[in-house]
C-alpha cells in the first residue's frame, strides 16, 4: 500500500499556484472569456453565419444595423454584410496578432538568451545592435520591409514579427544574466554539456514567465500595427479584410454610415483592453516578487 498515491502529500507546482492566482483575478478571467467568444465567433460566423463575406446585395447598400434581413451589423457601401465581415476581419486580425507574436517570441528569446548567456563582448555587441534598431520607429521599419519585399499576407506578419522582437530580447537577456550565475548552470558546465543544450534545457525554460507576460501584451500591439498598415493601404488586400481595413473603409463613410466605423472600432478596442487585462493578470500570477 505504500505506493498508493493518495498518501503522497499533494505537491503544488509553481505553475499550479500561478493558475490559481490567475483564476482568482476577475478582470483577467472576464477578458479571457470575451476573447474566447470572439475567437469562436471569428471561426464560426464566416462558416455558419446568415450571410457570406463576399455576397453583394445590390438592393441593400449602406443599411444600418437591423434585425430585418439578418444584417445585424448593417451592410457596407458595396452591399456586403458587415456581421460576416467583422468576424472574418477578427479572424485575420487575431491570426496576425498571434503569428507575429510567435515570430517575435522566437527571435527575441533565442537572441536574448544567446546575448545574456555568452555575455561579455558578444553580448554587448548584440545588445548594442538592438539599441540601434530601437532608434527607428517600428512602423517605419515595417513599411520599408513591406515596400522592399512586396505585400502579401505572409510577409506582413513576418515583417511585423521581425521588428517587434527587440523588447523581448532585452527582457530575456536580463533574465538570462541572472540565471547564468545559478548553481545548476555551473553544475551543467561541470558535466560538460554543450552551450546549446544548456541554453535549450536550463536557460530558456527558466525565463519563460516574463516571456509569456510580454507575449500577451505584444499580441494587441501587433494587432494594432496590422491595423495601422491596413489603414494606410499596406496591410491585407482584397478580398481579405481585417479590423484595420474595415475601420479605414468606415472612416470614408463617416457621415452616411457611422456604424461602419464604430462596430469594428469597438471590437478592436475591446480586444486591446482584454489582452491588456489578461497580460496584467498573468504578470500578477507569475511574478515571484509578490509571493
Amino acid at each position: 500500500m505504500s505506493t498508493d498515491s493518495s498518501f503522497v502529500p499533494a505537491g503544488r507546482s509553481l505553475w499550479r499556484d500561478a493558475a490559481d492566482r490567475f483564476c482568482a483575478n476577475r478582470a483577467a478571467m472576464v477578458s479571457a472569456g470575451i476573447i474566447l467568444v470572439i475567437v469562436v465567433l471569428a471561426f464560426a460566423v464566416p462558416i455558419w453565419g446568415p450571410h457570406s463575406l463576399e455576397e453583394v446585395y445590390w438592393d441593400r447598400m449602406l443599411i444600418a444595423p437591423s434585425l430585418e434581413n439578418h444584417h445585424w451589423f448593417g451592410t457596407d457601401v458595396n452591399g456586403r454584410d458587415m456581421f460576416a465581415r467583422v468576424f472574418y476581419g477578427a479572424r485575420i486580425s487575431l491570426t496576425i496578432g498571434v503569428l507575429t507574436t510567435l515570430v517575435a517570441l522566437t527571435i527575441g528569446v533565442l537572441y536574448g538568451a544567446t546575448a545574456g548567456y555568452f555575455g561579455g563582448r558578444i553580448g554587448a555587441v548584440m545588445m548594442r545592435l538592438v539599441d540601434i534598431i530601437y532608434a527607428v520607429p517600428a512602423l517605419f521599419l515595417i513599411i520599408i520591409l513591406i515596400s522592399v519585399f512586396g505585400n502579401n499576407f505572409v510577409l506582413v506578419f513576418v515583417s511585423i514579427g521581425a521588428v517587434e522582437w527587440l523588447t523581448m530580447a532585452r527582457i530575456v537577456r536580463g533574465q538570462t544574466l541572472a540565471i547564468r550565475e545559478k548553481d545548476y548552470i555551473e553544475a551543467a558546465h561541470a558535466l560538460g554539456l554543450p552551450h546549446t543544450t544548456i541554453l535549450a534545457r536550463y536557460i530558456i525554460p527558466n525565463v519563460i514567465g516574463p516571456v509569456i507576460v510580454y507575449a500577451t501584451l505584444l499580441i494587441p500591439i501587433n494587432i494594432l500595427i496590422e491595423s495601422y498598415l491596413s489603414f494606410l493601404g499596406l496591410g491585407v488586400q482584397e478580398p481579405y479584410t481585417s479590423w484595420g481595413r474595415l475601420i479605414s473603409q468606415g472612416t470614408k463613410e463617416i457621415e452616411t454610415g457611422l456604424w461602419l466605423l464604430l462596430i469594428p472600432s469597438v471590437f478592436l478596442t475591446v480586444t486591446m483592453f482584454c489582452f491588456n487585462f489578461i497580460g496584467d493578470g498573468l504578470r500578477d500570477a507569475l511574478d515571484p516578487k509578490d509571493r
Partner: protein
Amino acid sequence: MFAYILRRVAFAVPTIFVIILLTFILLHAAPGGPFDSLQDIDPAVLANLRSAYHLDDPVWMQFWTYLSGLLRGDMGPSLIYRELTVNQIIVTGLPVSVTLGLSAIVIGLSVGLCCGIVAALRQNSLLDYAVMAAAMTGVAIPTFVTAPLLILVFGLTLAWLPISGWNGGQIKHLILPVTALAIPKVAVIARITRGAMLESINMDYVRTARAKGMREIKVITRHVMRPVLIPVVSYLGPAIATVMTGSVIIENIFGLPGLGRAFVEGAINRDYPVVMGIVIIYAIFIVMLNLFADILYGFLDPRVRQK
C-alpha cells in the same frame, strides 16, 4: 556629468551611421526598381536613366556616393517626382511634422502631469476614478479611431473646426490633429505620474518635510515631484517614437503635407531616396531627443551618471 554627456553623444553618432547603412542595404536588396512602372520604355533610355541615377555602380560605391552627398547635405533627387529633390520634399514636410509632434508632446506632458498629480493628491476620490478611467480609455483606443470621431463631432456636426488641410499651420487647422495625437500621450503620462506620485508621497523624507512645517505647495514641488519626473522623462523616448508613428496616420487622415505622408507615398512608389532621406531625418530626430532625455535624466537622478 560632463563625462556622462560625452558617453551619450559618443553612442548617438554611430547609431545614426548604422541606421543609414541598414536602410541603404535593405532598400538595395529590394527586387524591382523605381522604373518598373514605366511601360514600353526604350532599353537605351532605361540604361541612360539608370546611369544618371548611378544605379549601375557597385553597391558599396553607391553607398559612398550617397554618404558623401549626405555629408554635404544633399540627399539626391526623388525618383518619382523628377522636378523635386529629396531635400525639397523634406524641407516642405518637416515643419508640418515637427509642429504636430512637438505640440502633441508638450500638451501630453503638461496635461498628463496635471491630471496625474491631481488624481494622486485626491486618491480614491471620484475625480481620481474619473481621470484614471479616461486615461485607460485614452490608452486603449487607437488614434485612427479617435481622429475620425473628432472630425465627426467637431468638424462635421458642430462645424467648429476645419477637418483637413494645413493652411500654413493656422491654429484652428492644428487643433484636431494635435488633439488626436496628444490623447494617448496625455493618458499614459497621467498614469505614470499618478503611480509615481503615490509612491513618493508616502516617503519618509516627505513626512519629514511636512513635520518641520514646510508649506504644502513647497513639499509637493520640492520633494514629491522630483522623483516623479524620473519615470516621466524615461517615457519621453518611447513617447517621441510613438508620436512620430502616430503622425504618419494623422497626416493621412487630416490630409496634412507632412513627412509621414511623404514617407508612406515614397514607400508605395518605391521612391527609395525619399524613403531613405525621411528615415534618416527621423532617426536623427529620435536619437537627438533621446540624447536630450538621457541628459535630463542624468540631472534628475545622480545614480545614472555613475554607470
